[in-house]
């Protein structure tokens, strides 16, 4: 069974065992607008919580995507190279960015669950 967690920077991480799939939220893709390019990390890259892991570029801005927790990148979504708009069309599914092996599952506790993220978004409005 999987669970999904959210960061204040609008990344999500879906966790299955020790592997987390990372992407950006629907709120983030909407705020960025049409996404034209995604720069992904190299497989094998060690990332730490809050460090730059990817770059997402829209017609009006370029933003960093941060690693939600410590770990190692194990796979990247190569489909985004040809079709970055997948992030707009399917932010929580086909528009995922990378998979990572999570170093400490306990770190996930510091992140928000879906309900907490929803109320966090309402606070931003």
């Amino acid at each position, binding site marked *: 069974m999987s669970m999904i967690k959210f960061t204040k920077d609008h990344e999500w991480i879906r966790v299955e065992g020790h592997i987390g799939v990372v992407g950006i939220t629907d709120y983030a893709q909407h705020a960025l607008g049409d996404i034209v*390019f995604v*720069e992904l990390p*190299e497989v094998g890259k060690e990332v730490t919580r809050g460090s730059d892991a990817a770059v997402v*570029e*829209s017609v009006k*801005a*370029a933003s*960093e995507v941060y690693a939600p927790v410590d770990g190692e990148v194990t796979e990247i979504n190569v489909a985004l190279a040809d079709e970055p708009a997948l992030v707009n069309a399917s932010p929580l599914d086909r528009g995922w960015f990378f998979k990572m092996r999570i170093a400490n599952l306990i770190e996930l506790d510091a992140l928000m669950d879906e309900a907490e993220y929803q109320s966090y978004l309402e606070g931003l409005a």
Partner: protein
Amino acid sequence: MRYLPLTAADRRAMLDEIGVASVDDLYRDVPAAARLPGPIPGLPGHLGELEVERALAAMAAKNVPAGSVPCFLGGGAYRHHVPATVDHLVQRGEFLTSYTPYQPEISQGTLQYLFEFQTQVGLLTGMEVANASMYDGATACAEAVAMANRVTKRHKAVLSGNLHPHYRDTTATLARFTGFEIAAGEPAPNGRESLADRIDAATSCVVVQSPDVFGHVHDLTALAAACQAKGALLIAVVTEAVSLGLLTPPGHMGADIVAAEGQSLGNALNFGGPYLGLFAAKEKYIRQMPGRLVGQTTDADGRRGWVLTLSTREQHIRREKATSNICTNSGLCALAFTIHLTLLGEAGFTGLARLNHAKAVQLAEKLGDLAGVKILNDSFFNEFTLRLPRRAGKVVNKLAKRGILGGVPAARLFPDADGMSDLLLVAATECTTEADMDALARGLAELL
């Protein structure tokens, strides 16, 4: 706008407003030893306009303008004929939009010429994409190294010893403040060095110039393959853009990035600046490129138009993570370049390059016959290196007294290197006449 100098009363009012007793009090934080106690010694007081003009004209008359005497100077800056049409056209109103064309609806003239400039640079260098120019060839070279570091995620640049030393120094300055390593080779006046052996797993790029600073022309194909095999990029530097009219473009020899000086086209020597950096790369690296990029598009009515594109790389959006901090290109110099090249056309440009080479061959024949003079080059475009039987710096000074700008002593470019003192770089262009060549040959024959 009138210029109204401050009166003593103005100054007093301003000082009172901020609560400071005197102007000197504003400099209290500067140690006394570092302060000048009074006016700068030797600097004359102010003069009327007529007197200033007279004094400056007298000062300017001490110069020997390159166009007024036989001139064989090169070493990265070349005297070429710039048609009068260029100066006339660059002043047209269509090009006088704001220098940073953020708003395409009022900047189509600027954007169109920059797009054509990029197209020309791409064609000349044999590369897929080019930017809207950099400050000069040396900064283009430094930016190319920074870009190679971003692409490869490595941090050591291997520099050919025959890269122009000003380009090497500019790159080293950027390295010092942005934290990457430079491995610069020793200059090789005979043009022979082994760069491929110096590539290792930490090498982000190899920077090589052709024609190199001593004039030797290099086939970069094998070096490009060696770079590719080890995951490093090949950066090709060109200091004489006219050579691209005759030599194989670096892009056709496998270069990943080309950094070049564009002064030779459309631009005068200008005492060393402003010059024009040309920057081109393979398209797959476009998002790591520095500088402005202009792209072609269509407007709402389907008409062709131009805009700044891929701006998200730039500092006004990307801030400290921008691919460069260069937003200002050398717009006017780029315009002059583009107009000159357009006036020449492809056949005209090739003809200009052939003429340059032919003049240099003729010069080499005349100088190679002189007793004690040896030409070090097996190959060259419009510049080559002589070994003289005495110190080149002294010979050049004596030639200057005879009204001949006899070339660039290699020791001026490489003051700290051994074996440079008797080497002289001489260049010929379409401006060089046979009488000029004879004057130099005669001068050298008498002085050596």
